[in-house]
């Protein structure tokens, strides 16, 4: 069994003294692990940093074996953002969420394309908004997508102001009625307003956080969300409150 593809490095774990087990997100194979001989060595350390774009060749005797990778670097991302705490926190949040959410060896080509676009824009203005849209796409791809097209009660699509914490469907102000205090506020950033401010993006992340931890993580066996996501949100909030 062997194949070759490109992918983004999600995680590296030392294996023995000199090898490493890496997890790579590829467009055609999804999240796929494998051993890199010499991956823990000095020569490979700069290459095997999370977020790196790699050309990978995987080989194993049987398909269900862990298998071994040979890797060639295409584009490093970590070194570019190491001096920028927000971008670094964003990179870690993306990689750890993908590691957390994606089932092994299941292709998600659309999510892959969106993840690459997001990582390529690391550190850009409005990156927080792009990250929020990516989390929405992640939820959608994992089967927990939000339906913000029309009100779940009235069917109208103007004056959408809330979102149901249970179903993820939007609700208008009139449709909410007395139930408003039980619903999550629906920030403009979730409705696709790219000019939404940082505070609005943070409100959006609070909503996606609810569905990531309360629905997706629960479905994955009550595992807590990776702390890296919260560190990114905290960093974004700190940037917002800094004078």
């Amino acid at each position, binding site marked *: 069994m062997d194949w070759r593809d490109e992918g983004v490095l999600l995680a590296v774990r030392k294996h023995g003294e000199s090898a490493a087990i890496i997890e790579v997100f590829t467009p055609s194979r999804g999240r796929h692990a494998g051993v890199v001989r010499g991956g823990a060595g000095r020569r490979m350390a700069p290459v095997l940093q999370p977020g790196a774009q790699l050309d990978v060749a995987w080989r194993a005797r049987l398909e269900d074996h862990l298998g071994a990778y040979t890797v060639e670097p295409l584009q490093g991302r970590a070194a570019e953002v190491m001096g920028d705490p927000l971008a670094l*926190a964003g990179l870690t949040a993306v990689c*750890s969420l993908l590691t957390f959410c994606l089932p092994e060896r299941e292709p998600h080509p659309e999510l892959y394309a969106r993840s690459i676009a997001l990582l390529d824009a690391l550190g850009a203005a409005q990156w927080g908004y792009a990250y929020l849209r990516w989390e929405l796409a992640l939820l959608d791809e994992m089967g927990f997508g939000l339906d913000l097209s029309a009100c779940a009660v009235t069917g109208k699509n103007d004056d959408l102001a809330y979102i149901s914490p249970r179903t993820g469907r939007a609700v208008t102000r009139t449709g909410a009625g007395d139930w408003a205090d039980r619903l999550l506020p629906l920030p403009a950033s979730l409705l696709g307003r790219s000019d939404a401010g940082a505070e609005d993006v943070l409100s959006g992340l609070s909503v996606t956080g609810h569905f990531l931890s309360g629905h997706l993580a629960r479905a994955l066996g009550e595992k807590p969300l990776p*702390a890296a996501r919260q560190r990114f949100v905290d960093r974004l909030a700190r940037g917002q409150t800094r004078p």
Partner: protein
Amino acid sequence: MAGGTEDIEALIDIMAKLPGLGPRSARRAVLHLIKKRALLMQPLADAMTQVAATARECLTCGNIGTSDTCSICSDSERANGQICVVEDVADLWAMERGHAFKGRYHVLGGTLSALDDVGPEELRIPKLLDRIRSDGISEIILALNATVDGQTTAHYIAGELEGSGVTVSSLAQGVPVGGELDYLDDGTISAALRARKAF
């Protein structure tokens, strides 16, 4: 191996677990020790017994020594208001090899890691913040690895110290001594270019 050598086999098995050694090299090392029993094996056994009984973590910085306060923390000449923060004792020893730093250290015992679910509470970060408050520290030098986890930890500590009045610096990143540009990875070259200085 011939019978009646269980003790030697057990020693080989233990030696084979040491970093850098496998079963074959452990066998060679044990054979060498047996041949030099008086000269090497007995002193080694004595030294190991002694260190096993006395080695402990410094209660202040996390360095490994033979008393509750290591030689660096008990040296009053090193109380210059600077603390160099390192990930591991091996990093502290590497810094000491260079004889370039004359202050004190703080060993975190790891880095924040999303993969291994290591948070600030699992590291010695709260202890570092206590030291800064109580010891009149003026500068923190973050000597953490230039990896995603290392730099995430560095930014976390810098964030915790924001507004405390303590100067936070970090080691420079760039071309190593003896390094040839042709052999450097792209990330190191771009980091070196960003950190260029007047010549």
